[in-house]
């Protein structure tokens, strides 16, 4: 006979009966409750009030990944700005400044290539890059 199989062969009714026998006695233990509670409080009294938990591994990894992403984004944005600055060097001075906006305006009046919006955008970009509020 398989002993493992036997463990499930006790009728449920009988199991319920056994449980009821075992749990039929209730013992009230208020004095023990109090002593155990006091003992636990005294036992853990050496612990700090709040435990400063070390940062979890996933949090460290996440922070590093976020920093890396932010760094890459910044470098890329800088590259974009530099590229757009050189692209907007209409007077060929090697720098983009307010004179380029005037140059663009002059080109517009003679050739009609640039729209007023593009000129306004260039002025805004130059002013912003120079640190002034738009």
């Amino acid at each position, binding site marked *: 006979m398989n002993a493992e199989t*036997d463990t499930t062969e006790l009728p449920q009714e009988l*199991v319920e009966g*056994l449980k009821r026998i*075992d749990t039929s*006695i209730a*013992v009230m233990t208020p004095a023990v*409750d109090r002593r155990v509670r006091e003992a636990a409080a005294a036992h853990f009294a*050496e612990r700090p009030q709040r*435990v400063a938990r070390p940062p979890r591994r996933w949090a460290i990894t996440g922070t590093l990944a976020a920093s890396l992403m932010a760094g890459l984004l910044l470098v890329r944005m800088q590259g974009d700005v530099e590229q757009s600055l050189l692209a907007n060097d209409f007077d060929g001075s090697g720098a983009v400044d307010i004179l380029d906006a005037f140059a663009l305006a002059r080109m517009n009046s003679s050739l009609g290539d640039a729209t007023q919006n593009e000129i306004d955008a260039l002025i805004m970009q130059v002013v912003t890059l120079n640190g002034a509020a738009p």
Partner: protein
Amino acid sequence: MRLDKQSDLELVELCNDGSRRDAAAAFETLYRRHRDYVTRVSLRFSSDREIAADVLQETFLYLLKKFSPTGEGLILSAKLRSLLYPVAKNQTLSAIKRRRRDESSTDFEPDRLPDPDTVNPQHENLARMLSHLSPRHREVILLRFVDDMRLNEISEALDIPTGTVKSRLHHALRALRHRLGSA
């Protein structure tokens, strides 16, 4: 999350490395959760409620010592009850021996079931049949079917190999069926 919703394992973790307040609260939750169980285990071996109350206190003071006051401590490899059971059992048997020495009494019976007077009459026959089993057989049946322990948990609680648990359970069930059949 409320402590009473947390598993024993999570509460043990809090006792291991929680703050002063969290650890004490987690321990108290474990105590309240298993208080009746430890009391019942004691009453399986002695119907003396005074002994059961003493055993309850000693069992949880023993568990408390497993948690270092400054952190780390207990690693739970099985159900907490597999740890509490042998402690409660041994504390009860020791208390019975002490009492026997003190009183020179010979009328106690170790491994007895609760006093039949306290048992519902409906289950009196079942209790009586169970009381006719050997203490070892009775113990393994109660652990398996009342405490719902798996074979490996019984093995841990009784500190015997799983094969021995299987064999003991097999013989216990056969004896119980025999009693049931002849009742």
